[in-house]
């Protein structure tokens, strides 16, 4: 992409092709001979990381689309089937879902890097603007992708975000109807979002090609912010940048794999494991973590239209950055004031991210307004002002000088990296569940927690018994098939035992030759039958509250962990909020509500249930279920066993996930080490 290449293949066949389509020359000049500044630091590897992430998202996305059904009635189930039944479906789904977060994580670092080193300045304005366009496209793609699982957060996220357009004067309502394809978010919305979610990544890929083209015309910026002048200032892309990028990518994969294999739901919201229900909005709607700063800006402005304008403005303003910041010096390294304000700006963004996850009340609103003002002030007041008043330090004469003058500062950048990583997670994982009025359930020791966790077979078998004899009277288990009971990583029954278990059940089948429905004995391929034919029947039989299906209950329930616990959780891999909650609710019944608490008619007091008034009567009592293996027949034991069983029903392949995770980590650590030493060797004579 940087002018005609002098690359000439020697093989006659390749020569023949090259004369007609100089594609090898193009690749050679762009990715082999291409001169790259020799002082680039690791922040510059994020370009390669992002390319890899885009490729990975497209690959896993195309595969998931082979199994996904974009229909309002089937979407949620089809994702569960991907995770449960498709070979390695759980892996592909985790890669795609966590991959979206990783993609944004990397793009934010990439953007802040550009901001810090002035990569948007002349002659790289178009390069920067193309980047802003990619970012906008990513946001649209990410949002529509989040709608596809059709859980509660998907549905209500779609409702809230599409409603943003209703703020448009005069045409607002019509635009929203147009987006929905109906009177509300529904099946047509899901269908078009799926179509666009499939299309947009390829548009992104196209703009990325332009982005790289523009990059290769202007040349890369570098930490010193001075253009390369002589041969000595640059090194060829291959092997220098290639090996460095490979090492960077490999490190990033380690970070990525931590999520895929050990914390797949850490960045997600438990509510999205509840199928979409157009009649009930979750208590706190929060977007995915990567939208939180903009969500905070939206909410901090009390006028609907102004809020929407401010939110979009906060992104669009980035495109004007090259003209807002007129300073001659590119790199903030040599701009004492800009450098400090840059870090303040990073803090403002993280602060907005945190506020976006909090409920919009009290101090959070005030803080949100202050930070919103600061966000815009940085671009509209500070940067134009700084370029007039700031006295930059002298920049080095050339990149070679910069390399020679290099000293310390590496430690600082590592610390900064950690702070940024940690800070982004702050913004990312805080669920706005502040006011659920529940008492935090006590943390239990679960056999399945941690990187080597396995299900306790005995507990699974006992839990199945408790489910069958107690819970199944009201609760379904509709994503679990009898055949699952004999699968590896499950309760450890044989195929024959699972078949025998299935044959105890009566399954409705049909129609037969005469068109009649009939009942037959269950087969291993059948799913656990639900106790009620439909939700209305379930509601009517249970005092107005439909007992939820239990297949996913341990993933669909959570509670607020609070700061700093959720940061520690990332490292300890604590992700058993769901099981802890289920276990606590089963044991949290109290005969008499505390003084001052009025229990509504037909409800029971439960210490851990949000709001404390639960419609389910105390389900378990001592001695209710007989255990054959001598385990104590107590409520505590029942609760623990059935929770373990329900954790398995929520994620039958958990053991496979953790096992494969270990193998992947061993491989990645070896690969990263190998790449590191290769990189050192390659760069030995360049420093």
């Amino acid at each position, binding site marked *: 992409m940087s002018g005609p290449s002098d690359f000439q293949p020697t093989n006659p066949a390749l020569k023949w092709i090259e004369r007609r389509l100089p594609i090898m020359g193009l690749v050679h000049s762009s990715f082999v001979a291409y001169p790259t500044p020799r002082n680039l630091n690791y922040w510059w590897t994020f370009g390669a990381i992002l390319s890899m992430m885009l490729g990975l998202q497209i690959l896993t996305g195309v595969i998931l689309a082979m199994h996904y059904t974009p229909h309002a009635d089937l979407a949620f189930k089809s994702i569960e089937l991907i995770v449960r039944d498709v070979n390695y479906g759980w892996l*592909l789904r985790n890669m795609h879902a966590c991959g979206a977060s990783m993609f944004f994580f990397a793009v934010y670092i990439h953007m802040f890097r550009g901001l810090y080193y002035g990569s948007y300045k002349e002659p790289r304005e178009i390069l920067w603007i193309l980047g802003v366009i990619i970012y906008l496209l990513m946001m649209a793609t990410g949002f529509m992708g989040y709608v596809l699982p059709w859980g509660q957060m998907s549905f209500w996220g779609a409702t809230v975000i599409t409603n943003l357009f209703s703020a448009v004067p005069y045409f607002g309502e019509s635009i929203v109807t147009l987006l929905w394809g109906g009177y509300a978010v529904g099946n047509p919305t899901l269908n078009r979002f799926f179509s666009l979610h499939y299309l947009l990544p390829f548009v992104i890929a196209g703009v990325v090609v332009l982005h790289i083209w523009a990059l290769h015309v202007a040349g890369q910026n570098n930490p010193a912010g001075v253009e390369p002048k002589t041969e000595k200032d640059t090194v060829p892309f291959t092997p220098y940048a290639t090996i460095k990028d490979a090492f960077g990518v490999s490190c990033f994969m380690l970070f990525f794999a931590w999520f895929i294999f050990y914390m797949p739901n850490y960045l997600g919201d438990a509510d999205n494991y509840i199928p979409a229900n157009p009649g009930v909005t979750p208590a706190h709607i929060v977007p995915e973590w990567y939208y939180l700063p903009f969500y905070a800006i939206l909410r901090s402005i009390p006028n609907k239209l102004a809020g929407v304008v401010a939110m979009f403005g906060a992104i669009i303003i980035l495109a004007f950055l090259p003209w807002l910041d007129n300073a001659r010096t590119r790199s903030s390294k040599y701009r004492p004031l800009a450098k400090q304000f840059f870090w303040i700006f990073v803090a403002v963004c993280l602060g907005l991210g945190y506020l976006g996850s909090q409920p919009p009340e009290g101090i959070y609103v005030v803080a949100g307004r202050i930070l919103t003002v600061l966000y815009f002030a940085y671009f509209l007041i500070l940067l134009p002002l700084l370029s007039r008043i700031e006295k930059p330090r002298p920049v080095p004469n050339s990149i070679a000088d910069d390399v020679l003058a290099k000293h310390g500062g590496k430690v600082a950048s590592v610390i900064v990296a950690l702070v940024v990583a940690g800070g982004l997670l702050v913004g990312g994982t805080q669920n706005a569940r502040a006011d659920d009025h529940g008492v935090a359930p006590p943390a239990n020791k679960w056999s399945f927690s941690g990187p080597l966790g396995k299900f306790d077979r005995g507990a699974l078998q006992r839990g199945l018994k408790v489910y069958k004899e107690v819970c199944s009277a009201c609760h379904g288990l509709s994503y679990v098939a009898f055949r699952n009971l004999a699968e590896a990583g499950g309760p450890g029954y044989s195929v024959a035992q699972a078949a025998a278990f299935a044959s105890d059940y009566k399954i409705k089948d049909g129609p037969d030759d005469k068109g009649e429905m009939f009942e037959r004995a269950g087969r291993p*391929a059948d799913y656990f039958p639900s106790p009620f034919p439909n939700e209305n029947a379930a509601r009517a039989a249970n005092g107005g509250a439909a007992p939820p299906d239990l297949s996913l209950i341990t993933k669909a329930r959570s509670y607020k962990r609070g700061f700093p616990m959720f940061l520690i959780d990332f490292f300890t891999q604590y992700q058993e909020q769901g099981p802890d909650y289920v276990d606590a609710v089963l044991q949290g019944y109290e005969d008499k509500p505390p003084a001052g608490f009025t229990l509504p008619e037909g409800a029971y007091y439960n210490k851990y249930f949000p709001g404390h008034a639960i419609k389910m009567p105390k389900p378990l009592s001592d001695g209710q279920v007989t255990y054959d293996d001598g385990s104590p027949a107590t409520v505590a034991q029942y609760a623990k066993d059935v929770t373990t069983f329900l954790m398995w029903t929520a994620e039958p392949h958990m053991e496979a996930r953790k096992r494969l995770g270990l193998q992947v980590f061993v491989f990645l650590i070896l690969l990263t080490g190998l790449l590191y030493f290769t990189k050192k060797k390659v760069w030995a004579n360049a420093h």
Partner: protein
Amino acid sequence: MWPLVAQMNPDAATIAAGAPIEVDLTPIAVGQDIKVFWRGKPIYISHRTEKQIKEAQNVPLASLPDPQADSARVKPGKDQWLVVVGICTHLGCIPIAHEGNYDGFFCPCHGSQYDSSGRIRQGPAPANLPVPPYTFVSDTKIQIG
């Protein structure tokens, strides 16, 4: 790499749904046949007439493109029941029963003709209609798979 390829294979639910099925033979009169589906494939179950059985048994094997005795294609003592996968071995169309010159099946796509034992007699198909795995659970009931 392997997960990216393995995901294309049938998923666990599809495999589980491919379990054996039972078919009651009582409603099928002599000379009639029914079509049932097993693993997404049509299975023809024919209640053959005496004439059809005779024809199938008396053909000289040497004259067949894919020589196979009729006795190898039905269960012993159950000569009247022919169970074959109704998918033309040429390119996968479904042959029509009771058509063609051999009292068997005729494939409308490219004109392959099968006899009353489901063996290829004429046309581009290279092989006989395959016999699916099945057993007689009782005199009037078979289990396919």
